[in-house]
């Protein structure tokens, strides 16, 4: 496999050459070398067809996973977008239920916690796909309807602006409008000030070339968790959409895993989850200070915030020597750790902290034997995060400045229900997660108590909500050949 290696796009793993020209670059890398970016959320005219993609291609091309290019571009579609482009219902029906129904479907919205007014911006989320739902209960309508998202990444702000201007011009020629725009910057530190992007799954499989030092015990997941058509964590080929062959309309789409009479539209693609989450930085830090002071014992706002997140501000883990298992004194990278041996009771990293909820590793095990099996199980629920922050960093994190900022949360996965939704529902927002009662994720969940294990007994500060949902949707991130196909609609 090593002869087929392609230029470096990520230091851990890359997409093998046979696939790299077809897979979108965003899957292989979050383009961290291109700090300035913009997400243009597009609304298509009625009966848009695919010709607007031609027009767009004249000025910018979607970036494949072949290596770093400046600028880089990614493109993804909502279900309502594909319908607007004229994709037939049978083909739409072959997408996953989550994608077809959309993030704002009434039951889904309830399950994702989005029906809770306290965790959404006043007036409710602004944008979504407004997916047509023939089964009675209409999705919550958002004021802005998004059909596609164009993500533009550049080295500096002036080349980004040039890129945006070119794209907007070509789009408006084709009748497509940018109905919502979020400018985003690379997220080494998210707005509360914490290091972000530390822990990521590491892909493996026939479509992947592993880089050096990726023999991780904790983070390896099969490529089918992110790339449609590859083997997933349940041992199946990750399912994706298919389209019927039309004899008079030859297509360059491959047969892939499609049954006879069909072409594989999903192969080498992925599902992209986007959620625009506003962060009230000053509110967060002032509240941390007050609550920490109320706990007494000289605890600081930083101390409390680090428990809420589950990592130190600089990104290092919270497991100090005092609770280290004798075996684990061996050197290890920051992210190669579990909780079972080191911190079963959460005395160092609280059981309910954001990081421990979003990836419990082996921490939910009862016995040593179970711990290993549980890592495997937990790794069937990982997501590849590629979000960025929006809005300027605050001058003083404790000073309210009235400027909107936050995280444009983005993640890639192939089974939205088993990956993104599972993380959000079963871990982050589950009041009974890991022996707890009536507590949810303190960072992004609704307000409530958070237990911080301590001696002789736990602290239990009240944590308010400082992260609010402003809009979001599930997108299909097609392969490059699938984009070519969509252009023929």
């Amino acid at each position, binding site marked *: 496999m090593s002869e087929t290696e392609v230029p470096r796009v990520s230091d851990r793993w890359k997409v093998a050459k046979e696939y790299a020209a077809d897979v979108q670059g965003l899957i292989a890398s979050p383009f961290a070398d291109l700090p300035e970016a913009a997400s243009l959320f597009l609304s298509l005219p009625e009966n848009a067809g695919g010709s607007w993609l031609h027009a767009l291609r004249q000025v910018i091309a979607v970036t494949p996973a072949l290596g770093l290019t400046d600028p880089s571009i990614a493109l993804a579609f909502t279900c309502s977008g594909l319908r607007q482009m004229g994709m037939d219902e049978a083909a739409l029906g072959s997408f996953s239920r989550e994608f077809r129904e959309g993030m704002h479907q009434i*039951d889904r919205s309830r399950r994702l916690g989005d029906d809770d007014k306290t965790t959404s911006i006043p007036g409710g989320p602004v944008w979504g796909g407004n997916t047509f739902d023939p089964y009675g209960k209409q999705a919550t309508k958002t004021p802005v309807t998004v059909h596609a998202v164009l993500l533009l990444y550049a080295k500096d702000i002036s080349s980004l602006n040039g890129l945006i201007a070119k794209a907007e011009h070509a789009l408006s020629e084709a009748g497509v409008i940018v109905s919502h725009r979020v400018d985003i910057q690379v997220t080494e530190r998210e707005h509360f000030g914490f290091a972000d992007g530390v822990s990521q799954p590491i892909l493996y499989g026939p479509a992947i070339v592993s880089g050096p030092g990726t023999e991780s015990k904790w983070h390896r997941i099969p490529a089918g968790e992110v790339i449609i058509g590859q083997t997933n964590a349940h041992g199946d080929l990750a399912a994706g959409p298919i389209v019927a062959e039309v004899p008079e309309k030859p297509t360059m789409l491959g047969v892939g895993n499609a049954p006879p009479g069909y072409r594989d539209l999903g192969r080498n693609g992925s599902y992209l989850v986007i959620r625009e989450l506003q962060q009230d930085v000053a509110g967060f830090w002032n509240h941390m200070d007050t609550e920490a002071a109320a706990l007494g014992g000289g605890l600081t706002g930083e101390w409390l915030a680090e428990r809420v997140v589950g990592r130190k501000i600089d990104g290092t883990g919270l497991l100090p020597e005092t609770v280290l298992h004798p075996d684990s004194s061996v050197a290890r990278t920051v992210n190669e750790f579990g909780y079972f041996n080191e911190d079963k009771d959460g005395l160092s990293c609280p059981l309910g902290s954001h990081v421990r909820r979003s990836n419990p590793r082996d921490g939910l095990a*009862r016995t040593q034997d179970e711990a290993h099996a549980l890592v*495997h199980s937990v790794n069937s629920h990982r997501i590849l995060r590629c979000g960025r922050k929006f809005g300027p960093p605050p001058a003083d994190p404790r000073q309210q400045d009235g400027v909107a900022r936050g995280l444009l949360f983005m993640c890639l996965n192939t089974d939205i229900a088993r990956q993104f939704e599972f993380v959000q*529902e079963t871990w982050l927002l589950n009041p009974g997660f890991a022996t707890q*009662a009536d507590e949810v994720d303190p960072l992004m969940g609704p307000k409530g108590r958070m237990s911080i294990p301590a*001696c002789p*007994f736990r602290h*239990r500060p009240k944590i308010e909500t400082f992260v609010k949902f402003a809009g979001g949707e599930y997108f299909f991130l097609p392969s490059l050949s699938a984009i070519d196909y969509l252009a023929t609609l």
Partner: protein
Amino acid sequence: MRQTVLSVVLEVQPASASRLREIIRGIRKAEETVKTDADWYYDRLRHGVPLLQFMSMTVCEDAQFDPVLVIECNFDGAPGPFWAQLENLYSKELRDMLRCCQRPRGKLQALFDHVTAPESRAAIAPFLEAATIWPAVFHIGNRGLPRERSERETALFDYCQKRLDDEPALRSRTATEVHAALRTGALAQFPWLNKPEQPQVSTAENIADWANLIGFLVLAVAVLTVPGLLLRSTFPSWLPALLGILGTVWAGFHLNWMKDPALPGLMGLPNPPVIIFGIGGVALFGAVVSVGADRFLHWSCVSTVGAMICSAGALLAVILAWIDVLETADPSQTAPPLNEQKIRDQIASEDRITQNHMISIVHLKPGVLRAILIRAGLWGLGYFLRLQARDGYLASMRTIHFAHWAFVSNGSRLMFHSNFDGTWESYLDDFIEKAHAGLTLAWSSGVGFPPARFLAFEGATHGLAFKNWARHSMTASQFWFSAYRDLTVNQIERQVLVADGLRTPTLPEVKAADWARRL
């Protein structure tokens, strides 16, 4: 402390199915609008039937059968008092529901007529009790914890939390002192802390659990060895030995794994081909012992034992090969017809409180071997679980309050109920990732189940196919009640530990620290 899991399944007059659904929805609506204290739903039922833990009422449709009414009940104690409480509360509704059902034939008929006659005021409980279907296998998460006790312990737990929140001064004390301080206050409010609780599993139950499992194993061994014993006692020793070897050889030829030996081992067991070779070896060994002891040593007892061993080995080998033959030819439904509206109804009813409920009914695959194995399998699994799963854990999952499997429609269909914590997706993923063998064993006899090997392998590991299959067999219940809207299995057990600690007058520091971790 005894708990009972049962269901009543009655055929519905097809034309009355929608009326029946309306009656059941009516009960639900009444419960959900009558709020007596603060914000509590189902007050009437909660107070009226204090024995009840979980209950569902569902009209299940099927293309091959008339609709059935399923009343699933999970409660404390014996059926008598429970039915009496339920009838006392819902006698009118229950009678109206029964009137929508078909008149049963056989011994239930007279009771049914009596209850459903116009203007009848006859007691309904005797009919429901007579029409009860007992589970083939069930699992109780919080075994031996009656609702009344869990409610007391919830109040105690909340009391402790409040005191710890309100009294920061406690933080500077030792764990032993914290325990003492909480106990002093708690005793005044919760005098029951001074009285002993009934054990979760009484000695009598414990003995019965062991006796059942041992009895089952003895019976299984007997069934496998008796043919050898009978043959050996009537025929010369070479005959059972020859039959055994022939059977084993037949099995060897029919096993498809020869072409596909890549099955994984499971739960520390070697993989199936190794097991089968081992079994063949046992049969051969028995045959040699039987003939050798008879011909050369004239030890007739040893010879008989040899014949019995040979018989057991050969029968097991034949059964496994037979299963393999059946499974290789089994059609599996890769795309079950999913009725979108039905699925939406299910999804709309889910994730409203801490627990969720599922009811599924599937058709059983035909054949005498399957009919025997599924019954024996569930029966044995049940006895095993009674001993193995007493602390809420089923394998590494601790999310199931009450679940059961039962045969319905005269044994041609298998019904599954579960009342579990968390989402349906996470529940099925738990099974797929952590307990697929047990689940496949119980469900692989269902028509259309994803391809399984040797009853327990693969099957449920085909994640998406399995989820689709499970979804399509389900029905959204018209009525579902949980006595604890926000208690997980885990939390109920946690409260037991907290209460147990407070029952103890003083705790030494190490124990007290351990106890305080639960708070």
